[in-house]
């Protein structure tokens, strides 16, 4: 055997097996899973808030204002919102940091060049879902979308119609076809990301215990992804079609 490749038959670190395991790919995956599921919970609440646009301007604007006054006077203005923002920011950072670590491992294990030369090899493999195939690049695109979304409706940098009240800004925005198109593309990517992500997160955390569980987890992931995508797309399309003014 050649000796050019470094072979490490025994552990060379001074960490205990438990401490090493806490840095392992499995625990990193668990961090990605938990941070992802926190974001899914946020998405469910976010979708609920969006759907209030069908209740008219008063209901929608009061909901937006009330988000900032939860717990007053015991909790300062926007207090709960800021706690949620910090939790979400930590989740996003943890999610991305885990991806970077695991992506590097993938490249280390399979190399950067073409792994198999056969042109008969299918890019999406034997049974990989299209969602699984788009996880990494789809995720990066979603991150770019989230920044755009914040520029649009949180920081008001992108503000078609120039209104101030939340309801008017949402309606003015989605009367623009190109804005609806951006959101449509982003939501399709979100749906794909959630379809594999929810299944993968629950599996990583140990829920895939049998063939029946595998089918149920996949169905749950598909159902939740569809509900969220449809729920998020209802307001923009209703506005574009003039059902909500």
């Amino acid at each position, binding site marked *: *055997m050649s000796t050019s490749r470094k072979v490490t038959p025994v552990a060379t670190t001074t960490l205990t097996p438990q401490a090493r*395991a806490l840095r392992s790919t499995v625990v990193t995956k668990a961090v990605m899973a938990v941070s992802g599921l926190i974001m899914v919970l946020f998405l469910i609440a976010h979708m609920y808030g969006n759907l209030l646009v069908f209740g008219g301007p008063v209901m929608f604007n009061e909901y937006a204002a009330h988000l900032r006054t939860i717990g007053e006077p015991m909790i300062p203005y926007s207090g709960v919102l800021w706690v949620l923002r910090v939790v979400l920011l930590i989740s996003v950072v943890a999610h991305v940091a885990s991806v970077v670590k695991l992506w590097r491992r993938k490249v280390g294990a399979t190399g950067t060049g073409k792994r*198999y030369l056969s042109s*008969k090899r299918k890019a999406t*493999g034997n049974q990989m879902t299209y969602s699984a195939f788009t996880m990494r690049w789809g995720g990066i695109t979603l991150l770019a979308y989230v920044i755009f979304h914040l520029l649009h409706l949180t920081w008001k940098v992108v503000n078609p119609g120039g209104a101030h009240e939340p309801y008017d800004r949402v309606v003015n925005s989605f009367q623009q076809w190109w804005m609806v198109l951006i959101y449509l593309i982003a939501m399709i990517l979100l749906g794909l990301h959630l379809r594999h992500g929810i299944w993968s997160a629950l599996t*990583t955390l140990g829920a895939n215990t049998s063939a029946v569980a595998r089918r149920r987890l996949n169905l749950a992931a598909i159902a939740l992804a569809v509900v969220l995508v449809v729920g998020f797309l209802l307001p923009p399309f209703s506005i574009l079609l003039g059902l909500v003014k």
Partner: protein
Amino acid sequence: MKVTLNIWRQPKRDAQGKMESYELDGLSEHMSFLEMLDVLNERLTSEGRDPVAFDSDCREGICGMCGLVINGEAHGPSPTTTCQLHLRSFSDGDVIDVEPWRAEPFPVLKDLIVDRTSFDRIIQAGGYISANTGSAPEANAAPIAQADASDAFDAATCIGCGACVAACPNGSAMLFTAAKVTHLGLLPQGQPERNSRALDMVNQHDEEGFGNCTNIGECTAVCPKGIPLETISRLNRDLLKAATRTDG
């Protein structure tokens, strides 16, 4: 039947390799894929050329030695080992690409042979139980539920061929590692070392440079023994439990 083979040729480890083309005629469709390579090697030898190096041993699908990436798929088009793949799975006149397993922890030694001792080190790290020597224990002394016995047996059928790694887009050996953790973790004999096994085997898996699992199931699609993806979820549960224990 007649086929054209494009085979990865690499004289030794760390040497530059390339695909080389060979035409074979007069083959029987009942030949196994390895028998076809034997025919090619006899011809190459008689011509004074270097035969194609490939691994094989039992040739009945139970040892895990043979393993080739055929047309970009680990073990080729049918879900079995390469030795159990027959030419009837191909058509007359086919061009067939033959490459070795590709993963950093599986360096190519020559042509189609890769070094899989990284798997041995993962097993050495924790894929065992400790038992006293002496006469065989009484068979009914440790009752095992039928469902556990079946699941443990299914996991134990892993032959360590490495197709899971070759097929995994992340180059992960989680299915292999999880099969052993599941096999021993489901049985009473495996309980004393259950926590340390999960920790040590996953640590060694990572140490060898294998990638992480992303639960997409390419491994199970090519596994000649049909090891299910659930084994990886079991491994995750054991590992997360063992890694977060506070009682040592």
